[in-house]
């Protein structure tokens, strides 16, 4: 069978429900792309500058400063971004005169824009794949100016929300094959998850990282259910390389992926033999490691630090005490233990950074729900957790043979959390939580889907359908009120 025929057959095998979940995720992200004001999403200015540098100079950014191209600076100025960001008392521009000035300035800048010094702010150290992809809509919108380009680039990110939801659905089909209804509930839950919509409605590599991660989760689950094949091993290797080229945060997921590949190869060796298993594993690992090796070689030959910005993180980590760092990592996610140094005096990071953040932290991390919403939100969260726990307890025996697979998922979670913690510790104690943002957890969306699917099953045969419907309605409500919160913040 030809590759094209194989692909056609594989696409035909995807249930229509999965495509519809993807469509809903796309529509939701497109909606968010129109709601979030231009450049009022974390680091969107820097990501745009990176694309602009790549598309116009055909070079990677060379500076982490904020001396962007003149057309972007003009847009930031006319949109009053500096006045609006972090200051909820200021909304976006509100007059026709301001709009006309913006339009006329940007129209003039289309032909006269100066590229600047190759700066891309905080994004400068990121790998280029996402930005290279975004260079296509950037070029398509070139005649219209910065805002046209940004709008088109946001639409590309929105497509990635669709990929994320599609593969969360497919991941659940492999991981929990006995309950089709639960796949749809989880797919729609992820599709309406406002943090995914918000991030995928903006220009940021987090949107692509989430999609890549969802595909990797699917491939790993498929491998554990059906066994590793040469094609699947190569696919995981390629996806790992794509992950490395998408965002540095993928470094946190990489150990889990490598562990998964190794365990799948070990399992395959029982049926196809050790030699054949190694022949599947070796090319996959080689492909996965290629971007890292190329990056190291380029840095060595250009006399830069061997691991680029990561060298800085490692050096900063080495200058801190290991005990202090471990204590910080623990406290960032779990309640402080007796005897630990107080790193977060007055706050519980679990509640105030992660729960509140995932519940609703939008705009430039300056748009939240009122405090009482957190208390109300605890009720459905606890209900879902209880149903999930019930299902896990009821089927605990079914999980035992899948310890290796669960271990891989655990390694993926742990790796990402540790990476976020280590990166954040660089700024500690001046900033207790300068780096950890809930959006960094989006690559774990497939496991979030698992929780929703287990909760649907946990309600039992009689109430399962009702519970599934209520979970979907809950996420619709969460999404709608999140959008209103952003609208009220910027346009009210």
């Amino acid at each position: 069978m030809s590759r094209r025929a194989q692909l056609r057959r594989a696409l035909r095998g995807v249930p229509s429900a999965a495509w519809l979940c993807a469509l809903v995720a796309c529509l939701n992200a497109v909606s968010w792309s129109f709601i979030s004001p231009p450049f009022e999403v974390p680091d969107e200015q820097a990501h745009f500058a990176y694309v602009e540098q790549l598309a116009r100079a055909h070079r990677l950014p060379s500076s982490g400063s904020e001396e962007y191209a003149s057309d972007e600076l003009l847009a930031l100025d006319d949109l009053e971004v500096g006045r609006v960001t972090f200051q909820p008392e200021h909304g976006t521009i509100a007059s026709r005169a301001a709009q006309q000035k913006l339009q006329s300035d940007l129209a003039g800048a289309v032909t006269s824009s100066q590229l600047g010094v190759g700066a891309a702010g905080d994004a400068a150290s990121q790998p280029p794949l996402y930005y290279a992809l975004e260079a296509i809509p950037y070029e398509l919108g070139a005649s219209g100016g910065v805002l046209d380009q940004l709008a088109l680039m946001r639409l590309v990110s929105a497509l990635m929300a669709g990929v994320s939801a599609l593969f969360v659905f497919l991941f659940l089909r492999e991981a929990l094959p006995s309950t089709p209804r639960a796949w749809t509930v989880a797919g729609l839950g992820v599709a309406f998850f406002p943090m995914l919509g918000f991030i995928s409605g903006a220009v940021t590599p987090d949107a692509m990282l989430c999609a890549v991660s969802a595909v990797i989760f699917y491939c790993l689950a498929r491998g554990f259910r059906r066994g590793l094949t040469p094609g699947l091993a190569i696919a995981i290797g390629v996806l790992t390389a794509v992950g490395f080229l998408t965002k540095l945060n993928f470094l946190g997921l990489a150990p889990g992926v490598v562990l998964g590949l190794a365990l799948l190869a070990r399992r395959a060796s029982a049926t196809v033999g050790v030699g054949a298993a190694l022949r599947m594993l070796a090319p996959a690992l080689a492909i996965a490691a290629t971007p890292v090796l190329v990056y190291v070689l380029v840095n060595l030959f250009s006399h830069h630090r061997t691991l680029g910005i990561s060298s800085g993180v490692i050096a900063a980590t080495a200058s801190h005490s290991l005990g202090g760092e471990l204590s910080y990592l623990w406290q960032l996610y779990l309640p402080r233990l007796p005897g630990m140094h107080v790193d977060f005096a007055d706050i519980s990071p679990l509640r105030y950074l992660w729960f509140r953040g995932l519940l609703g932290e939008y705009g430039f991390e300056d748009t939240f729900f009122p405090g009482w919403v957190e208390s109300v939100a605890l009720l459905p969260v606890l209900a879902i957790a209880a149903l999930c726990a019930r299902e896990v307890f009821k089927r605990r025996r079914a999980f035992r043979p899948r310890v290796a697979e669960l271990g891989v998922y655990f390694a993926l979670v742990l790796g990402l959390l540790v990476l976020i913690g280590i990166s954040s510790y660089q700024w500690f104690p001046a900033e207790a939580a300068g780096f950890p943002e809930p959006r960094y957890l989006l690559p774990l969306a497939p496991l979030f889907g698992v929780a929703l699917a287990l909760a649907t099953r946990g309600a039992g045969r009689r109430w399962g359908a009702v519970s599934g419907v209520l979970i979907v309605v809950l996420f619709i409500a969460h999404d709608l009120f999140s959008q209103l919160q952003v609208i009220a913040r910027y346009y009210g």
Partner: protein
Amino acid sequence: MRGARVALAGGLAAVAVALALVLSHPPAILARPSAIEQVNTILAIVPGAGSGCQAGETLPAHTSAIRLSLESSAGPRVAVTVRAGQTVVAHGESAPGWLGKVVTIPVEPLDRTVPNTTVCFAFTGAEERVYFLGVLAPRRGATRTSVGLLQGRMAIEYLRAGNTSWWSLAHSTARRLGLGRAWAGTWIALLVASLMASSIVLASWLTLRESR
């Protein structure tokens, strides 16, 4: 299947009612125009605990929250006390874990405006830095803090409930949503509404189909 239909209809109806109720409330607005348009000057950086008092303020009638220009990435709980002479006229405490350049502290509203007040604030954090933001001002009116007299005054804003509901602001909000865009116009609000309506209809149909 019938149970799923009832749950969907009931759930969506509850969301619609909640939406209507939320939009019937007035948004919080500034009780009086801010004297400081853009606050970017760092007047002091305090690691861990800090406090301060700023005299020469006026507490407007019906103030339901006070917004202080402090910056942090995981800010501590901040207590604020407003005094007129020796009398405490308002007091409140923020939730911890705030992020950004302002912290909003709810207070009990008064029916009258109180002039010549002193606004004092205090917080006890760990080691995280908290920035005091404001504008440069003569020493006479400067803010006194735990790290000494600042070089200026901190930005303090007073919020109260507005007079009109979100419903009556719908048109102006939709108009503003359409500004600062590539393809500007109020139609963007309609597009957003259509996109969300389509998503909800699609998801509802799919959920019911898969509930069979």
